[in-house]
């Protein structure tokens, strides 16, 4: 599957060489604009876990506190509440030194220990996970890391621990894309960033005087489709996230918006108003052939694919107000799927297709909500007034979205059960339009 997709991209890239727009505005120097996570609501059902600082046997200190990164990752998942370091009863670095009863007394359900040794210009990291109540070691692994890779190694360890305990694949090694905006009027600046899922290592991959919106990751995690107004109108671009190479895919008269990759990466759904009003189209990326799926006088936009690639969900105001509709990816009749409230838009499926996340409006504003696809039951997940642009983590446990903190646009995240939430404010300017990457490893 993966090989097929990368071949597809090569064919695609070769075919589009003539229309290659180039590396306009690409900033190669990483412009740091890290986002810092602030927990806004912890889950009362989070599992207590102790993460002991990893013993370091080298000279001086390490550039990164690996155990702290692991602890933060687990806490941000909403499923764990790590003990504070002052509550740790001892500082073992190996399972052999662990007295389970000590950890039972402080109500730790799980325990993580580890040690780091320098090995040439690299590090050897050994970590272990223990089930305190079960009185047994669950996991142990040794890995090698370089200076610049310590954060990635920590996220990898978080992924392993998360999966060993919950049975769900961890998504701590994924990335997010988002748009920043600063200034107003003629001084407005927009930029597209890619950062680690915890907000670190942010890199600007595009900057512009004109609005950028709706970034969407390709299923192989290599490319990002987005809408940019740099040509004087909306146009859809596809950019390689690491090389910066990009192509302009559509620049029709009218709106060119809302790109959404099919799960196999071979097609892009979008909203185009070239024939009068916004309609849902699907473009075959190899042939660039467009198929129009909807035909009516309403606004039809924000398509998203069901995980099996067989159907699309989209926003339409054909009933008089925006609601979500579902139709076959090959066209035909659309069926309305949202009936609660008079504003439901920007639908996004969970990876298993059983839950639909969306923006819903009630008396207190615009919130992220979820609808069970079987029962149609709707649960509102967020409580601030201006929540929009939900994007689901590849393991389905968290949803990142755009919200407001005072007058500033910030990113928020909420667990899919609504119990835990956090924010990722930027040090400056507004951030919005988040897109969570697929699994990258």
């Amino acid at each position, binding site marked *: 599957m993966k090989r097929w997709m990368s071949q597809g991209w090569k064919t695609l890239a070769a075919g589009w060489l003539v229309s290659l727009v180039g590396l306009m505005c690409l900033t190669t120097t990483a412009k740091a604009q890290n986002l810092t996570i602030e927990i806004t609501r912890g889950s009362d059902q989070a599992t207590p876990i102790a993460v002991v600082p990893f013993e370091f046997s080298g000279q001086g200190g390490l550039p990164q506190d690996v155990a702290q990164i692991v602890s933060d990752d687990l806490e941000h998942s909403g499923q764990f509440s790590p003990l504070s370091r002052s509550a740790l009863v001892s500082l073992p670095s190996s399972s052999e030194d662990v007295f389970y009863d000590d950890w039972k007394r402080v109500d730790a359900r799980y325990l993580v220990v580890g040690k780091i040794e320098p090995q040439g210009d690299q590090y050897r990291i050994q970590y272990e996970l223990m089930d305190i109540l079960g009185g047994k070691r669950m996991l142990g692994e040794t890995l090698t890391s370089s200076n610049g890779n310590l954060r990635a190694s920590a996220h990898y360890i978080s992924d392993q621990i998360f999966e060993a305990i919950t049975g769900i694949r961890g998504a701590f090694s994924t990335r997010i894309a988002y748009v920043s905006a600063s200034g107003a009027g003629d001084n407005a600046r927009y930029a597209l960033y890619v950062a680690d899922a915890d907000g670190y290592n942010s890199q600007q991959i595009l900057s512009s005087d004109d609005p950028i919106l709706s970034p969407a990751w390709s299923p192989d995690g290599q490319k990002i489709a987005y809408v940019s107004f740099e040509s004087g109108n909306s146009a859809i671009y596809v950019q390689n996230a690491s090389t910066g190479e990009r192509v302009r895919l559509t620049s029709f008269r009218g709106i060119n918006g809302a790109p959404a990759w099919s799960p196999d990466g071979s097609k892009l759904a979008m909203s185009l108003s070239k024939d009068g*009003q916004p309609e849902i189209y699907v473009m075959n990326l190899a042939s660039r052939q467009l198929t129009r799926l909807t035909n009516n006088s309403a606004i039809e936009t924000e398509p998203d694919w069901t995980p099996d690639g067989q159907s699309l969900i989209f926003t339409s*105001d054909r009933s008089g107000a925006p609601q979500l509709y579902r139709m076959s990816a090959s066209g035909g009749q659309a069926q309305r799927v949202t009936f609660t409230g008079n504003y439901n838009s920007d639908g996004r499926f969970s990876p298993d297709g059983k839950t639909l996340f969306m923006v819903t409006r009630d008396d207190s504003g615009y919130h992220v909500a979820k609808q069970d696809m079987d029962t149609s039951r709707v649960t509102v997940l967020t409580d601030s007034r201006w929540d929009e642009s939900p994007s689901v983590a590849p393991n389905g446990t968290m949803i990142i979205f755009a919200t407001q903190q005072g007058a500033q646009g910030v990113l928020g995240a909420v667990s899919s059960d609504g119990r835990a939430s956090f924010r990722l404010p930027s040090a400056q300017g507004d951030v919005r339009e988040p897109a969570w990457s697929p699994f990258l490893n």
Partner: protein
Amino acid sequence: MQIKTYAKTLAVALSLAVVAGCSSSGGTQEGDMDGTSGGMSGQGMNSGQGTSGSQMGAGEQMPSVNTIYFAFDSEEIRPEFESVLRGHAQYMMANPNANVTLQGYADERGTREYNLGLGERRAQAVERYLTVQGVSPSQIQIVSYGEERPAMQGHTEEAYAKNRRVVFSY
């Protein structure tokens, strides 16, 4: 581009000759964003009495009011802006080489992509009004920015009202 320069020169020249006697009425004192007029209230407002068609030389001057506003979730042309649109229609008919881009906008409420659709609907409503007056569709282009590039920042009703707009950009 040449047209734009020419039109700007024309507007400046004519503005010197115009008696600045029009009173601006409440709620429409917008300074336009695109700077073709420097924000004076002008011909468009003045012709609100429904006599614009008979004025001598009407249509030769680029209207100075370049922004009209809309109600929440509506693309209906408000009666107080019809004179502005008629002024633009006359100008465009008198200047067949003049091309305008109608920029459609929405306030920030709701999702960005859906708001692109709302901005476009407003610009299309203005386009329909102009073509019914006799303007050639080939003189009109539409770009919807939705809630992007707000005229006024903030989460207030005042800001929302300023942002639900269509801007004439020649």
